[in-house]
C-alpha cells in the first residue's frame, strides 16, 4: 500500500524533477522507504489492535502492565495505537470509518457515546450492565464502561478554609474562590463541567456562567494546563476529579488537597470501550472486553488511571481512596441529549462568558 503511494506520488507530482532536485527526491523516497519498512512485524500469533489514548499507554498509564497481563493469557499480541485523547480517538475513527484497523476502541467517553454509536462502527458487547459498579444506570448496548470518576473542584485546605458546599454557592458567591477550568471545546472535563452547569441550571445556565465568569481565572486547553496553574498557585480551586487527592496521597504522601463536595451532586465522567463491527478478531476482541472487566484489569484503574473501576475488584479499593468524598448524587446528561445540544450549549456558553 505504502509502496503504491510512493509510486503514485513520484509519478504524478514529480514529473518535472531536474537534477538540482535529485537530492530532495532522494530524501523523500528514502523517507517513504522507511515508512514501508517500519511497521511490518511478522508473527504467527493473532494480533489484537486496540485504539486508545496516549496517557493510557504511556509511561505513567496502566497500558503496558495490562498488555503483559492479557498477552500472558491470550496467546496473542496486543498492539496499542495511541491517540492524543478521547476527542482525537473519535475523530480518527470517524475519518477511518469502515476501513478502521481497530479491533477494540478503548477510551471514548459518555459524552461522545451517542455520536460514536451513530457511526455504526460498534458491535453489541453483551455485558450485563447490572454487574457494573457505576453510580448510575448504563444501558448502552455497544459501549461498555471500564472506569469512571466524578468531576469535582480540588482545593488546598491549607490555603482555602471555607470551600463552597454547592455549585450554587460557587456560582453565586461574588467574592468566592478563584477557579481555573478547562475549555469545553478542547477538553473532556471542560465539556463535563459545561454539561454539569446545564444540568443544574437548565435554561438559566448562561446567567450562571455570567455570574461565575469574574472568578474564572482562565479556561485552559487541557487538564494539564489547568492543574499545573492551580498547583502553581494561580487559582484557589481547579476543575478535576474527586480522585485527584488520591494521587497526592498515594504518590506524594500529601494530604492537603481535597475535593469539594457539592450538594447538587457531581457530574460523572465515564470511559468506554467497544468492539468494532469490522474486526477480524471478534472472539479475541470479546475476550479482551471480558478481561477488561476482570480484576486483573480493574485493579489497575484506581492508581493507574486514577479513576474508579467500572467493576470493583474483589480486593476492593486502595487505601488512598478511603478518604475521598462520596458525592450524594451522580449527574450525567444522556448521551443522545449531549449529541443534540452540544453545539447550542457551547455557543450559549461562548456568548455568556464573552467579555
Amino acid at each position, binding site marked *: *500500500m505504502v509502496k503504491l503511494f510512493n509510486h503514485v506520488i513520484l509519478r504524478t507530482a*514529480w514529473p518535472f524533477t531536474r537534477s538540482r532536485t535529485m537530492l530532495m527526491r532522494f530524501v523523500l523516497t528514502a523517507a517513504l522507504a522507511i515508512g514501508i519498512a517500519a*511497521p511490518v512485524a511478522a508473527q504467527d500469533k493473532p494480533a489484537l489492535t486496540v485504539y486508545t489514548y496516549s496517557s493510557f499507554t504511556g*509511561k505513567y498509564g496502566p497500558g503496558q502492565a495490562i498488555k503483559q497481563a492479557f498477552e500472558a493469557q491470550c496467546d496473542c499480541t496486543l498492539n496499542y495505537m495511541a491517540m492524543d485523547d478521547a476527542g482525537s480517538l473519535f*475523530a480518527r475513527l470517524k475519518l477511518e470509518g469502515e476501513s478502521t484497523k481497530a479491533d477494540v476502541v478503548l477510551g471514548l467517553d459518555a459524552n461522545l457515546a451517542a455520536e460514536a454509536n451513530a457511526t455504526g462502527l460498534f458491535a453489541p458487547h453483551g455485558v450485563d450492565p447490572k454487574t457494573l459498579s457505576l453510580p448510575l444506570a448504563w444501558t448502552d448496548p455497544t459501549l461498555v464502561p471500564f472506569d469512571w470518576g466524578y468531576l469535582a473542584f480540588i482545593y488546598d485546605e491549607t490555603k482555602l478554609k471555607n470551600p463552597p458546599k454547592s455549585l450554587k454557592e460557587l456560582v453565586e458567591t461574588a467574592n468566592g474562590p478563584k477557579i481555573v477550568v478547562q475549555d469545553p471545546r478542547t477538553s473532556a472535563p471542560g465539556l463535563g463541567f459545561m454539561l454539569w452547569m446545564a444540568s443544574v441550571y437548565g435554561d438559566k445556565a448562561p446567567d450562571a456562567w455570567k455570574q461565575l465568569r469574574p472568578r474564572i481565572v482562565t479556561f485552559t486547553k487541557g487538564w494539564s494546563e489547568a492543574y499545573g496553574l492551580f498547583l502553581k*498557585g494561580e487559582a484557589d480551586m481547579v476543575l478535576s476529579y474527586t480522585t485527584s487527592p488520591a494521587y497526592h496521597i498515594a504518590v506524594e504522601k500529601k494530604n492537603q488537597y481535597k475535593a469539594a463536595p457539592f450538594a447538587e451532586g457531581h457530574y460523572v465522567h465515564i470511559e468506554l470501550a467497544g468492539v468494532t463491527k469490522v474486526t477480524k478478531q471478534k472472539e479475541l476482541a470479546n475476550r479482551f472486553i471480558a478481561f477488561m472487566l476482570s480484576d486483573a484489569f480493574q485493579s489497575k484503574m484506581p492508581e493507574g488511571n486514577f479513576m474508579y473501576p467500572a467493576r470493583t475488584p474483589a480486593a476492593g479499593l486502595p487505601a488512598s481512596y478511603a478518604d475521598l468524598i462520596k458525592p450524594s448524587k451522580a449527574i450525567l446528561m444522556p448521551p443522545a441529549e449531549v449529541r443534540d445540544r452540544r453545539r447550542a450549549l457551547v455557543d450559549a456558553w461562548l456568548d455568556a462568558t464573552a467579555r
Partner: protein
Amino acid sequence: MAALAVGLPVLVALMGLAMAGGGLDPAALKQAHVQRVIVFSTVQAFLSTVIALVVGAALALALARRAAFPGRATLIALLSTATVLPGIVVVFSIVALYGRSGFVTGTARALGFEWGSWLYGLPGILIAHAFQNIPFAARLYLHALERTPPEHHRLAAGLGMTPFAIFRHLDWPRLKAETAGLAALIFLLCFISFAVVLALGGGPNRATLEVAIYDALRGEADFARAATLALLQVAIGLGLTLILAWRTAPIAEEAGSRYALLRADRSALPLRLWDIAVLIITALFIAPPILSLLSGAFFITTLVTPDMIRALMTSLALATGTAFVATLIAYAMARGAIAGRRVLYGGLAYATLAMPPFAMVAGLYFALRPLANVMALGIPLIIFINALMALPFAYRLIETPLAIAHQRHGRLAQSLGMTGRDRLRFVEWPLLRRPLFTAAALAAALSLGDFGVIAFFGGSDFVTLPLMLYQQLGAYRMDEASATALLLALLVFVFALGALKETGHAHS
C-alpha cells in the same frame, strides 16, 4: 517542484477535509463568536507583532553595536530558546514570574504593592508572545545589520555621521527590508497561537481560529466546519503574505568587502548607555522565565530511565530529520524565489503555517485513503509535517542571503556554467553558511519543542520528549515534568549556541 512539495499537501489536506465533511460549511463563518475571535486575534496579533518588531530591532541594534562583550553568544542562544519552547512550558514559565504567586508579583507584594489579577487577558497574551517572538525578530534583524558593507561604517565614521544619521542611513534601510516578511511571520504565529492564548487569555473570546478548528475536528468531528475554518485561516495567511510581499523590495546589494565590520557608532557614550539598558531590560524580561525552568534541576535524576533516554533519542532523531528536510525545502523554495516567483514561494511558506497540523494530518489521511494509509507512514510523516511547520522560519532566514549571493555572483556563476553543487559551494555557501545553520538549528529546536503533530491522531508507538512532558503533566508528575522541560530547554539552548559558534556569529 518545491512549490508542489509544499503547496500540494496543504491543498490535498483541505480537499480531504472537505470531502470527509461532504463539502464546506459557510455558516460557520457567519457565527458571531467566530467573527469576534477573528477580530480579537487580529488585534492581539497586530499588537504582539508591533512589540516584537520594535523591541527586537532595539535588541538587534544593541547586539550589533556591542559586538564583543563577554557572554554575548550565550545571551543570544539563551534568548533564542524562548522562541521554540512548547506552548505549555511558555505558559508555566510566564506564570512562574508574573502569575498570582509568581516571583514578580510576590516581590511586589513583599514591597507593599498589590496588583490584583492583571495577567489573564490581553496582557498575558502579549507578554507571552513578546517573550516568544522578540528573540526571533532580533536574530533576523541582527543578521541583516551584519550584512551592512563594512565600507559604509568607515564612510560614516569618515563623514562624522551622528549615531542618529547612522541609524537613519545605514541601519534603517536594512531593518525596513526585513520587516515586511518578518511582520507577516510573527503576525501569523500570534494569529494561530493556541495553548498560550487559551491559557493566558482568560476567556473563550480571547481565543484563536485554531481553537475553533480543533474543536470542530475533534470535539464533534465536524469536518465540513473544520475545512471551512482551516480554509479561512490559510486564506488569511496567504493574503497577508501577498500584501506584504507586494509591498517589499529586496535591498539592492553590491559586491562583497575586504574589510572587517566595525560599526562607526560603537563608542558613542549615550548610545553605549542606551544599548546596555536595552540589553539589560530585554534580558531581564526574557531570561528569567527561561531560567525559572532551572527549578527542574532538582528532579533531573528522575529522567535517568530507559523510557526517557529512548524519548530523548527519538526526539533527537526527529529533530535531525526535520532540520535536514526543512532546510532543504526552504533552500529549494528560496531558489525558486530567485527565479522570479518570490511572491508565490513567500505565500506558500506561510500558508503551510496557517494550516493546523492536526487538520493537515486528518485531511491528508482522508484524501489519500484510497492510495495509502498516511498514518502508517509514522516517522517520515512526522518529519515532513514538522518540516513544513518550521519552513517559514527557515525560509525567512535563507531567502534574503541567497538573493544577495545571487545579486553578487549570480551572473558570474552563470557565465562559468556553475550549477547545483558547485554553485552552492562557491557562490552561495559563504553567505548562506550562517543562515543555513541557524535555520537547521531552529528547525531542529522547533521539532524538539513540538508535541508531536502525529500524536493527535496516533499512528505511532514512540514517545518524544514533549509527549513525555505531556504524559507527566497528565499524570500529576509536575516535578518530573519540570525536569523534562529543563532538559528540552537545555537541548534547544545547545542547538542555538552550536549554530552560533559553528558559524562564527559570536565573534563577528
